[in-house]
C-alpha cells in the first residue's frame, strides 16, 4: 500500500516492475482476475497445508493419548487439558507469562514513549539516536539472551562493574534470585482476599518471581526502541496546529500531552500492545538462552514447557495441548485486533 503511494509521488513514474515477455503474452490471453487467482493459489495452498493443516493436526493430537514416540490417536476428549490445568509447572508458567507480559509491555510502552517525546524535540543528531535505540531490535533474542546472561551474572557483569566503579558490589542475584514475592495467606490482606472468595490469589503460585525481571530488562532493552519508532511516527503525524491551538487556549505542555498527544496516539499504543503482547505470550528463545527456566521455574514459560515435555518426555499429547492453549491465548489478543483493523480498512 505504502509502496504504491510512494511510487505515485515519484515524478518520473517509471513502472516498478516490467512483466517478462511470456507473462505479458499470457496476460493478453487470460483476464487479470484469472491470472491473479492462478498466481495466488500456490501460496494459498501452501499456507492452508503448512499453517492451518498443522494447527488442525496439533488440535487432533491434543485430544489423543499419544504419550510415547509411537503415535496413538485414541480419542480421550479434553483429559489432556484438564490435567494440564492441574499441572504445577503449567500453572507456574501461566503466572510467569502474565507477570512477564504486564511488565514487559508496560516498560516498553513507557520507555518507548519517553524516548520518542525526547527525540521529537527536533534535537541535533536525531538520526543517530534513533538508530542507537532501534539497533537492539536487529539482534535475535538468542543473542540478547546470551549477552544479558553475562551482563547480569552475579559473579560478573553489572555487579562487578558496580564494585570497580565505586558504589560497591551490588550483591544482587539478578536472574538467579529464587525469591517469589506473593501475598502470604496468613497476612491481613491474604485473609481479606480469602473472605472475598479470592483466597487462591494469596499463594506462591500467584506471586511475582524476581528473577523474571532480569528477563524483562533484556526483552525491554531489545523492544523499547521499536516502540519508540512507532510513537515517533505517531507524534510526527499529529498536526502542529492542534497543539498550537491548545497552547493558544492556555494549555501548558503537560496538558497538551495529556489532552492532545496521548488521545491521538491511542491507535499506536494499541498496535504496540498487540505486537509486544503476542511476542511475550510466545516467548521462548530469550528464556532458553538467558536463564534456562531457572532458578527452579521462576522464569519458565509455556513454550519451553511444551518443547521439553514433547521432545524430552515424549508426552506428545500434552505438548500439543499446551500449544493449543498458547494459540488460543494469542488469538484472544490478535483476532479482535484484526477484526478491528480490517473493518477500518474496509471503511477507508
Amino acid at each position: 500500500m505504502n509502496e504504491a503511494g510512494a511510487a505515485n509521488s515519484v515524478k518520473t513514474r517509471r513502472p516498478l516492475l516490467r512483466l517478462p515477455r511470456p507473462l505479458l503474452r499470457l496476460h493478453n490471453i487470460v483476464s487479470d482476475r484469472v491470472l491473479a487467482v492462478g498466481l495466488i493459489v500456490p501460496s494459498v495452498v501452501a499456507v492452508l497445508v503448512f499453517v492451518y493443516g498443522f494447527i488442525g493436526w496439533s488440535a487432533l493430537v491434543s485430544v489423543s493419548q499419544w504419550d510415547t514416540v509411537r503415535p496413538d490417536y485414541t480419542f480421550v476428549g479434553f483429559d489432556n487439558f484438564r490435567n494440564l490445568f492441574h499441572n504445577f509447572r503449567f500453572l507456574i508458567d501461566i503466572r510467569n507469562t502474565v507477570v512477564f507480559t504486564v511488565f514487559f509491555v508496560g516498560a516498553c510502552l513507557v520507555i518507548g514513549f519517553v524516548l520518542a517525546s525526547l527525540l521529537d524535540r527536533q534535537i541535533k543528531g536525531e538520526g543517530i539516536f534513533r538508530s542507537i535505540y532501534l539497533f537492539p531490535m536487529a539482534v535475535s533474542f538468542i543473542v540478547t539472551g546470551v549477552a544479558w546472561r553475562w551482563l547480569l551474572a552475579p559473579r560478573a557483569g553489572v555487579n562487578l562493574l558496580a564494585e570497580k566503579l565505586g558504589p560497591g558490589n551490588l550483591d544482587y542475584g539478578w536472574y538467579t534470585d529464587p525469591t517469589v514475592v506473593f501475598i502470604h495467606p496468613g497476612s491481613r490482606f491474604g485473609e481479606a482476599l480469602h473472605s472475598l472468595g479470592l483466597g487462591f490469589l494469596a499463594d506462591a503460585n500467584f506471586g511475582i518471581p524476581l528473577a523474571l525481571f532480569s528477563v524483562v530488562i533484556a526483552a525491554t532493552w531489545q523492544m523499547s526502541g521499536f516502540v519508540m519508532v512507532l510513537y515517533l511516527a505517531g507524534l510526527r503525524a499529529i498536526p502542529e496546529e492542534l497543539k498550537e491551538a491548545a497552547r493558544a487556549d492556555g494549555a501548558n505542555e503537560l496538558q497538551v500531552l495529556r489532552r492532545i498527544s496521548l488521545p491521538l496516539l491511542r491507535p499506536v499504543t494499541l498496535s504496540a500492545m498487540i505486537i509486544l503482547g503476542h511476542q511475550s505470550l510466545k516467548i521462548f528463545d530469550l528464556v532458553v538462552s538467558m536463564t534456562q527456566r531457572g532458578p527452579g521455574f521462576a522464569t519458565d514459560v509455556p513454550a519451553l514447557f511444551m518443547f521439553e515435555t514433547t521432545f524430552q518426555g515424549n508426552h506428545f499429547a500434552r505438548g500439543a495441548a499446551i500449544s493449543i492453549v498458547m494459540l488460543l491465548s494469542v488469538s484472544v489478543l490478535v483476532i479482535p485486533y484484526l477484526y478491528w483493523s480490517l473493518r477500518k480498512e474496509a471503511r477507508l
Partner: protein
Amino acid sequence: MLSRKSIWFMAMAVFASAVMAVACGGEKKEEGVTPGALKGDLEIFSWWTTGGEAAGLQAMYDLYPKTCSPDVKIINATVAGGAGFNARQVLTTRMLGGDPPGSFQVHMGHELTDTWVTTGYMEPLDALFAQENWTNIFPKGVLDIVSYEGKPYSVPVNIHRANVLWYNKKVFTDNNLKPPTTFAEFFTVADALKAKGITPLAPGDNGIWASTQVMETVLIGSLGPDAYKGLWTGKTDWKSAEVTKALETFQRMLTYVNSDHSSLSWDQANDLVIKGQAAMSIMGDWLHADNVAKKFENSGWMPSPGTAGVYDALSDTFGLPKKAPNPEAVKCWLKLVGSKAGQEAFNPKKGSICARTDCDASLFDTYLQSSMQDWKKDTIVPSLAHGAAASQGWVEEINDATTAFVTDRNVSAFQGRLSQACVNAKVCKTTATR
C-alpha cells in the same frame, strides 16, 4: 491494466511458490548397499562435542578404517548439550520422520527400552552378541539392562558412576576437616565450612538433570540400594516415611549451596571447587575428566554420603535403528564399539571405565582404576537422571518436580508430585491423590 500494487503482489506470490517448490522437492537418499565390501556413508549421532568425549569418539573413528573398511566415510553428527538434553530432541524428530542416523548414542536402560525398543524402532542385536561372545564378556548386570524380552538392543561402550563426592583436598586439610561419609558428617562439615565463609556444596544445575542427580544420590544414601531400586518397580512406596526422610535430607543439603547455582553449568560449578571458593560437589565421574583437563591436582573423591559400596551406574550405548542407511557398516561400527581395542581407545580419553571386564587397567589413571575395582565388587544400581532407571517421560516429570522443589523447598508437595509421577508412568497404582 494491472495496478502496481497487484503486480507487486503477484511477484511475491510467484516468488513464494517458487520457494515452496524448492523447499518441498527434497532429495531422495540413495539406498541399497552391496554386501561384502563396505562402502558409502556411516552417520554416527552423539552429543560428544568437547574435550575428552570428542577425543575418545575420534579415537574409535580412527580405528574404523583398519577394523572395518577404509572406503566408508564416517559422518560425525553431534548435537552439543550435557546428558544429551538437546540431542534427544533432534533424534526424536529424525526417528519419527523416518530418517534415522546409522547409529546413535543412547543411555542404557529405560531411556532406550521404553522410548525406542518397545515401540519397535530398533533391531535386536542377539546375533551380533553371540558372534562376538559378548554374552560372556559383558557383566550380567549390564546385559540385563540393555536387553528387552531376552534380546540385547544396544552395545555399551563405557560405564560412568553418578554417586561421587568430589572435594578440594587443600580446603579440607587447611580447615582440619575430614571428607564426610554419612549425612550426619556431611552436615557437621558443611556447618564448619559455612562458618569459614566457604560454600560447602557447589552444584551447577543450569541443566535440568543436575538437581535430579544430586537428589538420586540422596535417595540411594538414605534408602539403601534395594529400596532405591524398588522405587522404579513400584515395590518401594513413594509416599513412605523413609522417602520423606530422604527428601528432608535433600532439603537440608540445599541450604548449603552457592546462591548462583542455577546460573552455572556443572563444570562452571566445579571451577568454584578448584578455586577453593567451594569445598565439595556431588557429580558423576565425568567431572574427573574436567579436573584432568584443568590440571587440578588437589582433587579428592569418595562415594557420596551414605553410598559406600553402591555403584550408581550409567552407560552410553549404541544401537541399530530399523531402516538405518548402510546397516552393514553400522554393524561393523557396533562390533568396534564393543571390542576390547575400541573400548580401550575410547575410555581413557573419555574418563570412564570399560563396560567389558577385560580391559587393561594400566591404561587408566588412579581414579579410574579405583572405579574399576569398585565396579567389580559394589552393588550396582541404575542411575535415574541418566535414563537407566526410568522412562524418559517419568524422568521428565521428576525433573520438573525437583526443579520446583529447588526453589519452593516444600517437601510434602514434592513428595506428592513424585508419587503422582510414578502413577503417570503407569508403574505405581492409581491410588495417589493429586
